[in-house]
């Protein structure tokens, strides 16, 4: 928009926007700061903001006491595993719906979306029971499967919207030149689809990382990821703000960084293409 704005107007906008932005971000900032305090400073009255003795001891204690790395490993395996598995299943489906649409393509897409809306709590017991019967309770494999299934509709949809933007003429040209279906996918489609696939992977790792219904209900000690690790801090034990903050910071840092890269994909992925 070519609206002319005075420098003064811009300065006022900037001030208000920054104030609001910092206010919204403040709980995260405060958590990060508190993670570097001693427990005493963490509950000091009045609260100390920046002028305290910065320390890393909380991070060491959290790792030592609760084996942070094990939960982190579980989170990484579950988030990445479910995403990769989902992508493998979704690419062929999204490809064929985008390039060889049939009469029922739209219905299939809508139906896939509808499975995403099934409330988890409505099927909690059956899944729980199946997990016991199949020996999947508290296993990483079990969570990989469940998270793959709950995110599969989003993965298919995102890939579908990306694939549809690839011009069909290019594929036709490749076909005219005698490219087989396999070659068409490997040499023509894949290079053009890589950015879309990468965005899809990014958003779905974030969603899987933060999923907090199945990860809390289907794990105990062995396969628990970071969501469950943090939940174990819900019953306070003495002075624990600084340690809670350190644990929280470690749990959200990787995804916060990834999230900043995926802002744009977020809109596409979570609105199923309804807002562009």
């Amino acid at each position, binding site marked *: *928009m*070519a*609206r002319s*704005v005075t420098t003064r107007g*811009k300065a006022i*906008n900037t001030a208000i926007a*920054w104030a*609001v*932005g910092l206010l*919204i*971000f403040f*709980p*995260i900032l*405060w*958590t990060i700061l508190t993670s570097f305090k001693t427990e005493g400073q963490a509950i000091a009255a009045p*609260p100390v903001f920046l002028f305290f003795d910065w320390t890393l001891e909380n991070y060491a204690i959290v790792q030592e006491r609760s084996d942070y790395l094990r939960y982190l490993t579980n989170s990484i395996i579950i988030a990445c595993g479910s995403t990769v598995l989902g992508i493998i*299943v979704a690419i062929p*489906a999204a490809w*064929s*719906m985008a390039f*060889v649409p*049939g009469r029922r393509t739209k219905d*299939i897409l809508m139906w*896939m979306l509808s*499975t995403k*809306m*099934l*409330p988890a*709590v*409505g*099927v*909690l*017991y059956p899944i729980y029971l*199946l997990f016991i019967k199949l020996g999947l309770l508290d296993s990483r494999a079990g969570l990989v499967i469940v998270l793959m*299934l709950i995110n*599969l*509709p989003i993965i*298919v949809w995102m890939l579908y919207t990306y694939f549809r933007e690839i011009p069909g003429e290019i594929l036709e040209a490749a076909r005219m030149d005698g490219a087989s279906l396999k070659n068409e996918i490997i040499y023509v489609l894949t290079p053009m689809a890589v950015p879309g696939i990468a965005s899809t992977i990014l958003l779905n790792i*974030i969603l899987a*990382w*933060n999923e907090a219904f199945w990860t*809390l209900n289907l794990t105990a000690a062995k396969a628990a990821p970071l*969501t469950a690790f*943090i939940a174990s801090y*819900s019953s306070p034990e003495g002075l624990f703000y600084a340690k809670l*903050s350190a644990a*929280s910071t470690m*749990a*959200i840092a990787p*995804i*916060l960084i990834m*999230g*900043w890269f995926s802002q744009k994909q*977020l*809109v596409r992925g979570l*609105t199923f*293409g*309804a*807002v*562009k």
Partner: protein
Amino acid sequence: MATQHSRSAARIMIAPAVILLLGWMLVPLVMTLYFSFKKYLPLRGGDLGWVGFENYSRFVTSSSFWPSIATTLTLVVSVLVITVVLGVLLALLLDRPMWGQGIVRILVIAPFFVMPTVSALIWKNMFMDPINGLLAHLWRAFGAEPIQWMSQASMPSIIIIVSWQWLPFATLILLTAIQSLDGEQLEASEMDGAPPVKRFWYIILPHLSRAITVVVLIQTIFLLAVFAEIFVTTGGAFGTKTLSYLIFQRVLESQNVGLGSAGGVYAIILANIVAMFLMRIVGKNLD
């Protein structure tokens, strides 16, 4: 032609995704329906036979049913109103020219990436704790008695936490929609001397209506399923038991699977009603 060949290839390529999702949907759904007609107590005798619709009537006549519906509606409606109103204002603000726009955007979006257990726990302990919480310090600084957030203001607490998590989502989508607004129309109205309020009411808001609908529907589906935020804060006490949480307690905590499954069927029906509206909007966009 090659179309016949590629059609059948296409079908084979869709098959794994469709079969997996079909299984994921049908198997648990059928099991939930099956259990909902049984008296089934895994820890107290197991399968005690068919009971018809008894679980369904018992679930809705239990003393915690209507309060749970009221709690669910309070949570969903409050969070929707807060996030949409503030989201529109924030989107308008972020759309204006400023220095460091990218950084401000990042600050505003950040809460969405915080896992639910973390956001609930840092709010509960570091902000809402009546002794050491930051809000308690703030209240005392103004000479007021700190609020016992989790017990005396349990619903407002959870509404604040959940709104904080979802405000970035609403803002981001509404900002995307505002940015697609035709600048010429706005400029024309500006030249005609339309005051900002009128411009907002007659041009910007109608343009946003579709995005607002999408935000409302998608958030409703996620808000009906809010779980971790209640699990780690009040555990369903102090009037924060939503329908989802009530079902969770029936199924896993008191292990009354038949009763919980009947509740699950109600939740599924409720979610489907919301979903129907969302699907209609998304479906229109596909053509």
